[in-house]
């Protein structure tokens, strides 16, 4: 009980301060979101707004002044709070611009640091909790691959070398930013070499891509001021490794936004970005573990929990009903799988939530047990949507203490915490009345045996957007991994086989339509058509005729189960307060 008390106490603090933490955010959102969406909040617009990013960048950099003032964080925050609240804020901004730059020069390298303070502090508090508890909450997501000790591994030991996949992030100046295993300090020289290689090749008006040895594939990728390197013996294709690095990059962006990263390094080449990411390595660790173990990343599609369409619809309706202005996405998640997602119509019209962004979101949630305690209100950037602006995510589990069903509400308004929290309560009520939680608890992934083909061991099926619902979120379905893939190693092996097929069939230079591979321990068949993408795993003793029949049977089965396996038509709602719009919505 006492513990709980502590938690809630913490949460209080979070709750209270969170909304006020980010002074510049309103400007951000006000400038960013509209720039995405021309019709929303027309009236709130200030003339200067349309200039967009540059403006908001100034705003944030302008804040650089403040930390210099000797003050506790709390004070600081409140000061900021006041400032940002003052209506004239936006006017003064432009005036401040020149002064900023002047200040920046003599200022310590804190530029843009605030952007992450929320997340960072969030973490710090967790760690605070963690100290009371056995271990830091993030470590709970640790897979065998990543016990927390990885940070201080001996980088000269064989055990370190033998890791399946290393990932390094460094700045153009060669400063370490992140290493999946081993401390950045210990690896600074290695990272130095990496950077040297990159720039040497660059100096020859060329670009380094990768290095191959019998054991490893080393992939280099530069994104703005950041260099990402993957050293893997997983035999994945270069393209796949590159995509994984993009995820890593985007996860960082989701915390900092691309704009500020650029800005930071513009101001200070050899800035140590770890200061901003302090504590958030675990999110990257979690991401990398997920990337290795969850095919969603490979397929760039969302895995949603099979659910009777009636139940899914009623859930969607619940979400549709619980809305508030500037709420753009309502997402219901169970067991880290998507239950349903409801989107603001206007947003949908020309943009949509990319699977990639959803993955980052899910990782963020999964990576932090802190979210399991009460409610969280935190800014997050969805890079595929817009790498330079924040959304505000309201995250709360609906079924404590099990914490399997999680509600995520994304708003464009940093002030909307209370109204959004209100939505959550509505949703909770509605679900209680419908006893939805119970039925959700019953819902679970299915067994391949239900398809009824004896030699079929596993499959992944990804339908492509078809014209009539081209707005649909890309999804895939796949049964539980059962015997003989019960062990962690076997699962990983099967995934690697899938990765292989995927890499080959989607090869940039030599794409294929079909692959039938009688491998050492299974027979695999990959098939890509204009309608779908299918990966199947059979017994190695299956005959070709058998396999072909199995595929036909499987496709028929999926068609039959479609409604249960996929979100067919993602519902939409309208939150626009302005009448013209509402009238339109009434028309529905």
């Amino acid at each position, binding site marked *: 009980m006492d513990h709980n008390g502590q938690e809630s106490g913490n949460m209080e603090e979070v709750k209270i301060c969170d909304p006020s933490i980010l002074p510049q955010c309103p400007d951000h959102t006000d400038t960013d979101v509209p720039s995405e969406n021309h019709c929303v909040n027309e009236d709130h617009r200030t003339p200067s707004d349309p200039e967009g990013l540059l403006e908001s960048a100034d705003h944030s950099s302008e804040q650089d002044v403040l930390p210099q003032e000797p003050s506790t964080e709390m004070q600081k925050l409140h000061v900021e709070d006041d400032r940002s609240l003052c209506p004239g804020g936006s006017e003064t901004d432009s005036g401040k611009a020149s002064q900023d730059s002047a200040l920046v020069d003599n200022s310590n390298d804190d530029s843009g640091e605030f952007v992450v303070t929320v997340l960072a502090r969030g973490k710090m508090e967790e760690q605070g909790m963690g100290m009371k508890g056995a271990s830091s909450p993030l470590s709970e997501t640790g897979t065998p691959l990543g016990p927390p000790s990885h940070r201080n591994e001996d980088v000269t030991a064989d055990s370190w070398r033998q890791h399946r996949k290393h990932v390094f992030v460094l700045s153009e100046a060669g400063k370490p930013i992140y290493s999946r295993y081993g401390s950045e300090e210990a690896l600074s020289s290695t990272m130095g070499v990496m950077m040297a290689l990159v720039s040497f090749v660059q100096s020859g008006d060329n670009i380094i891509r990768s290095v191959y040895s019998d054991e490893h594939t080393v992939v280099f990728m530069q994104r703005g001021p950041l260099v990402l390197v993957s050293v893997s013996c997983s035999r994945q294709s270069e393209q796949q490794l590159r995509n994984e690095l993009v995820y890593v990059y985007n996860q960082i962006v989701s915390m900092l936004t691309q704009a500020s990263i650029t800005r930071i390094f513009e101001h200070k080449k050899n800035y140590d970005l770890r200061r901003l990411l302090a504590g958030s390595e675990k999110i990257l660790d979690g991401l990398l573990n997920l990337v290795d173990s969850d095919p969603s990343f490979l397929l760039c599609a969302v895995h949603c929990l099979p659910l009777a369409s009636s139940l899914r619809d009623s859930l969607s309706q619940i979400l549709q009903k619980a809305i508030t202005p500037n709420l753009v996405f309502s997402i219901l998640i169970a067991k880290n799988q998507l239950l349903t997602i409801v989107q603001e119509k206007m947003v949908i019209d020309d943009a949509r939530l990319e699977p990639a962004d959803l993955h980052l979101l899910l990782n963020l949630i999964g990576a932090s047990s802190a979210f399991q305690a009460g409610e969280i209100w935190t800014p997050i950037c969805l890079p595929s949507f817009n790498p330079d602006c924040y959304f505000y995510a309201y995250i709360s589990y609906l079924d404590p203490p099990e914490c399997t069903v999680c509600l995520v509400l994304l708003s464009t308004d940093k002030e909307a915490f209370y109204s959004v929290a209100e939505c959550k309560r509505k949703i909770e009520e509605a679900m209680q009345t419908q006893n939805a939680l119970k039925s959700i608890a019953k819902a679970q992934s299915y067994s391949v*045996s239900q398809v*009824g*083909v*004896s*030699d079929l061991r596993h499959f992944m099926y990804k339908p492509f957007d078809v014209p009539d619902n081209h707005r649909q979120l890309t999804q895939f379905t796949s049964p539980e991994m*059962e*015997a*003989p893939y*019960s062990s962690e190693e*076997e699962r990983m092996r099967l995934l690697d086989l899938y990765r292989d097929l995927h890499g080959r069939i989607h090869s940039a230079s030599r794409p294929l339509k079909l692959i039938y591979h009688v491998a050492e*321990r299974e027979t695999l068949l990959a098939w890509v058509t204009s309608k779908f993408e299918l990966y199947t795993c059979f*017994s*190695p*003793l299956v005959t070709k005729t058998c396999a072909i029949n199995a595929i036909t049977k499987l496709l028929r089965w999926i068609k039959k189960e479609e409604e249960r396996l996929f979100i067919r038509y993602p519902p939409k709602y309208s939150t626009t307060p302005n009448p013209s719009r509402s009238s339109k919505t009434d028309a529905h």
Partner: protein
Amino acid sequence: MNDEYYLELSENPVQFENASSVNNVFFDEANKQVFAVRSGGATGVVVKGPDDKSSVAFRMDDKGEVKCIKFSLGNKILAVQRTTKSVDFINFIPDYPHLEFSHECKTKNASILGFCWTNWNEIVFVTDQGIEFYQVLPDKRTLKLLKSQSINVNWYIYCPETAVLLLSTTVQGNVLQPFAFKTATMSKMSKFEIELPAVPKPAKLSLSERDIAVATIYDQLYVMYLKHHSRTTNSPGAEVVLYHLPREGTCKRTNVLRLNTTGKFAINVVDNLVVVHHQSTQTSLIYDIKLRELDGNVNVHQPVLPARSINPFKIPLTGPAAAPSQAPLPCELYSSSWSVFQPDIIISASEGFLWYLQVKLQPTLNLLQDKGKLMDFLLRRRDCKMVILSVCSQMLIGGDKGNLSVVATVFDKLNQVYKEYLDAEQAYTAAMESGPSRSSAYKRPVRTQAVIDQSDMYTHVLSDFTEKKEVKHKFIIAVVMEYIRSLNQFQIPVQHYLYELVIKTLVQHNLFYMLHQFLQYHVLTDSKPLACLLLSLESTYPPAYQLSLDMLKRLSTANDEIVEVLLSKQQVLGALRFIRSVGGHDNASARKFLDAARQTNDTMLFYTIFRFFETRNMRLRGNPGFNPGEHCEEHVSYFKQVFGESAVMKPTTA
């Protein structure tokens, strides 16, 4: 020098009382019997031969000087000629009266030159005016004339072997008229003329019976004419001219044997070799009319070997006179008292010996350098096997190591004979199977010593040759391959042990790549044993595994072996795929494969195999479970233990 003599006299000669004033000695070529007639038979007649043991002795009244005396075949009836008009007969058939009876020749004032028995009771009188062919009726003690032919006769020669009688006719006597005899019949064969070196003027008898011999060589009847050296024709020396005398058709002059010298000669035929003895040099020459060096229409032959004397003969001292201290005294060879009879008989009347002339092959090895010729020669001899084999070993190991091409020719010659025999065998058995009716035509081919088969070659030559340390392995392999090549050339299936030999040698010197290439071109014919041998090499030479699997596959009768091999290599999936490809998976033993899968400690593999059989059971019996008979219980429980109950296939699925 002893190994130089290639001719020898039989070591136990037929001994008889030597000719003297009181003891006349006669020889009957037909029965190979020597008659010693003491004082016209009154004091007894001793008949010896054909070997030292057999002898007959009897008395007969002295009715005057005996001209000729011979038993009919089987010593049934004795015929004695004392006058030129008649021949006397004595019955020797048991319980027949032992009384003499006589018969005169029917032709008026013709004088009998002699007679010869053609059967146990048929006899031919040869008179100066023709021949009279009689049947003797011992019980009636009379003769019945069967046939007669009148023709002027100078002299005659009878060849008992073929029952052919040669009559010398015309003034010069060089036109020979042959007659052939068969029970109760006499047929006249076409006559022929012997070419004389010079035709004398005026014509006079110029062909003597001493210069003519008749014998069968290689189953053919030949008339051998000793053609003396003539000043006129500048031939280097005397020759022996052979006339082939076929049963039907005309007699042809076929071979000429060059003697390259002059003097007194005598001819024998031993083991199908013509042996010419030369008295003055006390040496003999041998000729093989099948060793042909082409020269015009007839084959002119040189001696096969350099002239050599007959192996000196020591007279064994026998009887009471013999004292152990006394060394046996050498007997004079080529003595003037020798008389030579066909085919291989030499008689020394003065010393009372009858020898059979024999050819020793061993010495020929060193006397005949040309190994090919030597083989041709040896392959036609009676007791050649061991000699041939020793020639082979000698040419491989011996001092005068023949080079490969020689080895090759030798092998080819041997295998030719070998192949001919095999074909004959095959034809015979084929005929046998095709039914006895036709088979009567065939007679089982006789296997002569000349047939040297692979086991002979292996046991007596190759096996210990390949053991020889001093021989370079390159040569060893070359030789064995050469032998295999030769066998293949004659389409003789090669025996496994030869391949073993090759492989053993190659492996000994780890010439695996060589072996690999041989197998690649199927030089070593496929067989299960060979495949197993290869398999056993895998540890030292991994590729052998693939090679042996290929072989088993080609045999197409070795599917079980293949499965075993694969399983032994823990290739459980491979084994199962294979058995499926040959359609055997429905009755394959689940137990066997599950055991194998278990042994690999690869649970994934075990799962696969287990599932495979579950599905099979499903297909066959509509139920994935195993029958008690399959004894898979422990595997089932292991499966559950590893993958859980739920993983076991439900009868409903699939």
